[in-house]
């Protein structure tokens, strides 16, 4: 639908006033909106009240409150847990970059055509199969304790590096599948158009397919990033002093579980901005029914 620039300046368009009937309709719709809002607000408050009351009135609540929600312990353990969280953030940031690169290479390897590339395709497929199937905690244990056991020179022994390596191994397999789904979602006619212009297969992939594929998979990628930020806490089982391990140490020191709650709150605070960013990107690319009617969108009501 083309926009006629003259209509925007049309004086008739500017002086238009809604009719009495339309004003009455608008008032009715506003009333309905207010009512829905009130119902939603009321039910939220009621539900929260019931949950809080149920918690506070339970027989063990005074004990639980003292051992999980002690403000003194929370304040005292916060610096140590924050220090640990900083390690999580660094591990996450570095692994995320490596994961993206490895995963993209894996996805590309799986799309290579022809019998020549069969071994490459088969290797990539086998890799994805194995590391998507293995529980992350097993990979962490095998890498963390098995790799140093080989006593090869140059193999790192730091728990942080080995933990990061395990994260990369597992997450690359997941993210590779996300990339592959994106690549395969680009319509073949796009490749046909690129090849018709004389672009090589690689050029078509690089300049036509990948830009569209990557844009499409950004929200699921961010979803994996959120999962990664939490799973970075698992490197604590190798002995790295991250937020989870720090909370464990503090818990032992004060004989009180509050540091775990502190760590939990910090992890949530870390992932919320990521989740909101995912939502915003999804809306911008027209998901969640945000498509405009001009594109043949759904029904208004």
């Amino acid at each position, binding site marked *: *639908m*083309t926009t006629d620039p003259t*209509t*925007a300046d049309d004086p*008739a368009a500017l002086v238009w006033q*809604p*009719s009495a009937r339309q004003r009455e309709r608008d008032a009715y*719709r506003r009333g309905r909106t207010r009512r829905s809002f009130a119902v939603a607000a009321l039910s939220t408050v009621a539900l929260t009240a019931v949950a809080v009351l149920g918690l506070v009135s339970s027989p063990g609540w005074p004990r639980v409150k003292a051992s999980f929600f002690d403000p003194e312990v929370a304040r005292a353990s916060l610096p140590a847990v924050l220090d640990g969280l900083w390690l999580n953030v660094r591990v996450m940031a570095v692994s995320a970059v490596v994961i993206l690169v490895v995963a993209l290479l894996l996805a590309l390897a799986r799309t290579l055509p022809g019998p020549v590339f069969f071994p490459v395709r088969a290797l990539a497929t086998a890799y994805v199969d194995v590391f998507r199937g293995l529980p992350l905690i097993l990979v962490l244990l095998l890498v963390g304790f098995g790799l140093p056991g080989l006593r090869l020179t140059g193999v790192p022994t730091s728990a942080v590096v080995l933990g990061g390596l395990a994260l990369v191994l597992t997450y690359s397999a997941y993210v590779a599948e996300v990339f592959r789904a994106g690549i395969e979602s680009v319509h073949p006619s796009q490749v046909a158009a690129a090849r018709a212009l004389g672009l090589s297969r690689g050029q078509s992939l690089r300049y036509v397919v990948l830009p569209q594929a990557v844009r499409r998979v950004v929200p699921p990628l961010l979803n994996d990033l959120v999962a990664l930020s939490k799973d970075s806490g698992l490197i604590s089982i190798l002995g790295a002093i991250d937020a989870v391990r720090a909370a464990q140490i503090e818990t032992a020191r004060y004989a009180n579980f509050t540091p775990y709650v502190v760590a939990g709150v910090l992890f949530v605070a870390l992932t919320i901005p990521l989740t909101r960013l995912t939502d915003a990107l999804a809306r911008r690319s027209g998901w969640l029914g945000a498509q405009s*009617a*001009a594109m043949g969108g759904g029904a208004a009501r």
Partner: protein
Amino acid sequence: MSPRLPDPRLGRRLPAVPDAVRDEAAPLLSVQTVRKAFGAHVVLDDVSLDVHRHRVVALIGASGSGKSTLLRCVDLLEDVDDGVIELEGQDITDPRLDADAVRARIGMVFQAYNLFPHLRVLDNLTLAPRLVRRVPRAEAEERARAALERVGLARKAASFPDHLSGGEQQRVAIARALVMEPSILLLDEVTSALDPELVGEVLDLLADLKTSGMTMLLATHEMGFARDVADEVCFLHAGQVHERGPAHQVLGDPQRERTREFLRRVTG
């Protein structure tokens, strides 16, 4: 225009067929001073037109003149910004009405067919009768086969839409609208996406529907078809009804300069 007092029950359930239905002289569909704007862009500006029972009205006009938007407003896929649309004497733009129940009485066929690709042809046809009308599956399938027979595609019942030609897909889409036994059929440039040799089969079907008495409001670029099948032609320009009248008159002897200019451009 004073606001009519609302019946509080209307939000829950549609009344039985309104009294006006029995008044054969009243228009089946009446669009009155409808306005629709997207932001600052006024797409429909004070549009009024009537469609009488068993009549075919063709909307013509350039891309962006508001034809599709008018059809989408009639099918309540868009809320109007002002004005009234009455179907069988009932104000369907009233926000208290259950819009889904109104849409079930109106058939809509889209330019790009909009068949459900994950369902076989027969299931495309039975979906709405079963979910909306609660028709038992066996009966719904029987009716669907009859509708497919009518559009000449009985042998395609078990196919998926992807395996049909464009013309066949559009005929399935028309059959899908027909099984709901709509009061009126809205057709939005239903031949625009078709190869020239497939246009004929769809237009033949529409002419056949007219003969059987179906009321239709259609947006079209096929001037020959509008001349042959439409009783009335309505030329939309810049969101307004610029000229309307009997098809042979508007297309054969247009009174307004813009209509003449438009017809010169499309007929070459």
